């Protein structure tokens, strides 16, 4: 029998996931009102995307690390190191922009493999390994840059993060190309949602009522198209947004559909059980850290491109923002739980809060306090929920 869920069931059944989306909407509305709508202006939305893209990229890798039951503190330093190497190659040695990109990615691969080796094969906890990495990579950054900033990049390089796709299909006052891309995205989302709903029905799983389903598609469609409209009215489609979208889609697939992704959840959920089921725990752990290294270097490329140079102090505290995004987005401290999309929303919550508070002219110190409290409350909510769920699960188990 196919169970049809109504709105209330849907919300209570997955309180953590729905809670985060509701919180996100509430925060957007809250700051939109407080800033008299400035938050949602085309220029500002573009800014939010550009400003927080590298945190979101880091959060994609970090959520996988956290699902696997680890933590990575070195990503901020790695952002700096990969940007620095790229800057040396391009700015100092005069190679073309793509050579810088490749060099930065190579740094990510080597650093990721290095940390993966210690975590997976030597068995040093990731906390310690990456704490060492944090110092190590920062020190190397200073060495590579000789303690000074390197800038500016040639324009081809800064286009990576600061550029826009605009005017490809014309349009007067707004960019048609941007709108088309967003429309394709909405159609794709609708198609995917419909297919998964049909799949669930075919396997007699409970699904939301059809009215609710349509309402959800309409709301998402309207919000996404409104966002696209605002971008189209500003400078068009940021390149960064394309990079980010590709990464989000790719990693959503990896975490939910690939054997690797499933093994990450398995060993985060119960390491011994995973090992006894034939999961090659060491190689999965290696892969987790390697992947984090690569994504950190991608973030490093985007960051250096956006800031149009490499600074010795680049990326400081990025690791903490990325980790916070994951936990706000529903990842569990004990591992085994988390989603790429959750981490993205978690990151956006932080982004909108910072941006909103900046627009309101709130002091940096207060911003930090607010962010800290939000992180604490989000995890407290998680713990509370789990305890409640645990209590009811116990009751079921005693049948």
């Amino acid at each position, binding site marked *: 029998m196919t169970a049809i869920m109504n709105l209330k069931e849907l919300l209570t059944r997955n309180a953590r996931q729905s809670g985060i989306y509701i919180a996100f909407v509430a925060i957007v509305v809250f700051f939109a009102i407080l800033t008299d709508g400035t938050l949602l202006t085309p220029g500002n939305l573009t800014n939010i995307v550009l400003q927080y893209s590298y945190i979101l990229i880091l959060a994609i890798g970090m959520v996988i690390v956290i699902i696997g039951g680890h933590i990575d503190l070195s990503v901020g330093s790695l952002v700096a190191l990969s940007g620095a190497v790229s800057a040396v190659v391009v700015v100092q040695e005069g190679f073309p922009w793509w050579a810088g990109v490749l060099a930065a990615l190579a740094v990510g691969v080597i650093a990721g493999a290095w940390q993966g080796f210690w975590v997976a094969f030597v068995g040093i906890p990731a906390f310690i390994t990456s704490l060492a990495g944090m110092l190590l990579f920062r020190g190397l950054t200073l060495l590579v840059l000789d303690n000074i900033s390197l800038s500016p990049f040639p324009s081809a390089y800064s286009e990576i993060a600061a550029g826009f796709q605009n005017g490809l299909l014309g349009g007067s006052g707004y960019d048609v190309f941007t709108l088309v891309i967003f429309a394709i995205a909405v159609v794709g989302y609708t198609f995917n949602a419909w297919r998964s709903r049909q799949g669930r029905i075919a396997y007699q799983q409970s699904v939301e009522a059809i009215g609710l389903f349509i309402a959800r598609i309409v709301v998402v469609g309207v919000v996404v198209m409104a966002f696209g409209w605002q971008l189209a009215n500003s400078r068009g489609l940021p390149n960064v947004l394309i990079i980010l979208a590709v990464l989000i889609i790719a990693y959503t697939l990896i975490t939910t559909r690939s*054997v690797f992704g499933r093994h990450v959840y*398995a060993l985060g*959920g119960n390491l011994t059980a995973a090992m*006894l089921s034939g999961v090659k725990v060491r190689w999965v752990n290696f892969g987790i850290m390697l992947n984090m290294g690569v994504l950190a270097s991608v973030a490093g490329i985007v960051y250096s491109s956006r800031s149009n140079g490499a600074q010795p102090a680049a990326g400081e505290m990025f690791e903490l923002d990325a980790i916070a995004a994951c936990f706000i987005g529903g990842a569990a401290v004990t591992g085994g739980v988390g989603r790429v999309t959750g981490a993205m929303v978690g990151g956006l919550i932080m982004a909108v809060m910072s941006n909103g508070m900046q627009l309101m002219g709130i002091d940096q110190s207060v911003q930090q306090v607010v962010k800290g409290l939000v992180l604490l409350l989000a995890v407290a909510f998680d713990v509370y929920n789990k305890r409640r769920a645990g209590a009811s699960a116990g009751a079921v*188990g005693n049948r």
Partner: protein
Amino acid sequence: MATKNILEMHSITKTFPGVTALEDVEFSVEQGEIHGICGENGAGKSTLMKILSGVYTHGQYHGKIIYDGEEARFHSIKDSERSGIVIIHQELALIPYLSVAENIFLGNEQRRKTGLIDWNATNHAAEKLMEQVGLDENPMTPVFQLGVGKQQLIEIAKALSKDVRLLILDEPTAALNDEDSQHLLGLLRTLREERGVTSIMISHKLGEITSVSDRTTILRDGKTIETLDMSDKDATQDRIIRGMVGRDLESRFPARESNIGEEMLRVENWNVYHPTQDGRLMVEDAHFNVHAGEVVGFAGLMGAGRTELAMSLFGRTYGKNITGEVYKSGKLIKTRDVSEAIDHGIAYVTEDRKRYGLNLIEDVRRNISSAALSRKLAVRGWVNGNAEMKVAEEYRTSMNIKTPSVLQTVGNLSGGNQQKVVLSKWIYSDADVMILDEPTRGIDVGAKYEIYTIINRLVSEGKAVIVISSELPELLGICDRIYTIAFGRVTGETSVDKATPEGLMKLMTQEKAATPPSKKKEHQKS
């Protein structure tokens, strides 16, 4: 000898959801005696001791405890310790990186008036206690540097520091060699004579029980069977064994026609050492085989080395310095890690499904697919979600897993259904040798019958099944052949029509043949 009872427990009943662990148990201990407790695993020995030591507090059980002539109501372990009852568990509760003295006085620190710890007093007092238990070590030595035998003595010294009057020891000699065991047992006698300490000792080593205890109580299925006076010449090991196993074999097992085929798995010269304690042999020179269509039982008491044997075979997941040969269908194979073992069609269903068998926060579907994900459900590293769903649904039906949906979190299912999920996972991995470690532990009678039916189905499909169990009726009910394991060695092989519970129990408690001189006395008795 004094005849006053220091302890009387009257009509103790303790129920857990779905299970009655103890039913109207009567148990009394005389002042100054050493009292043995015998019983199979699950007979209720540990539960009874947990009630006595305040782990299960007053109100969580029915019945009455009279200690030292007064009714006792313990609300915590501290309560019982204050009245001089101290329990030493089988798994020692010492903190490895703290010193001997620190461990002895943990939670009971010797403080100055200022509230700071008086280290001189601590170490001095520890030295005195160590002298009493015959432990000649520096009190400042970290505990992990000492062997298990000495650690056991530290536990006793710790008990003495709490002015123990009634000492409870759960399997105190299980991990000890003969010499250390003898020392420990001698110490119990000394403590009785010098300090009037009464001891209760749970043990599977019947030789020890008959040689050291004054009286012995036998528990079976949560009931007191009898209390034997060991000075009575009828009180032999055989008598104890009969008491431990004597229960009727009802028709709790589905009938099966055995149809035994070719040899499927053969293990020879298998030796396994303890992973952390150097030189401690956990499995010694084991030989066994199992045929297609055959259910082979491994009978052994807890700690006998059954699980260690199975896990060392299954991708060396237990132990180190493993040596020996494994033949699969006559061919020598290697099982160096879990995936290699799975590739050779070996599956190990753990005795502790919650800790080692399941990802409790994941759903039924993904737990079922987890051992065969990359082999059977993925193409180039990508999982076919629809096929996975289909598989999960198939197993839900064929294994009768009672869950509202295969998307239900496994942690929410009952024990029996969780076990069916674990079995599904391994059946789906296409294993043809299934090692089931305590497959019916902690599940109710109805679900047990279903598990037996599944085992029968597996062998009728030509698979080989090894069942590890400490419940003899279970093994006698479902196996074709039974190996007995005691103290790390395979002590016997019996076909099921010739096996009796008494005969098996004798083999399960058989100690090593070559015995040092100090143990002669025991053997004369037996």
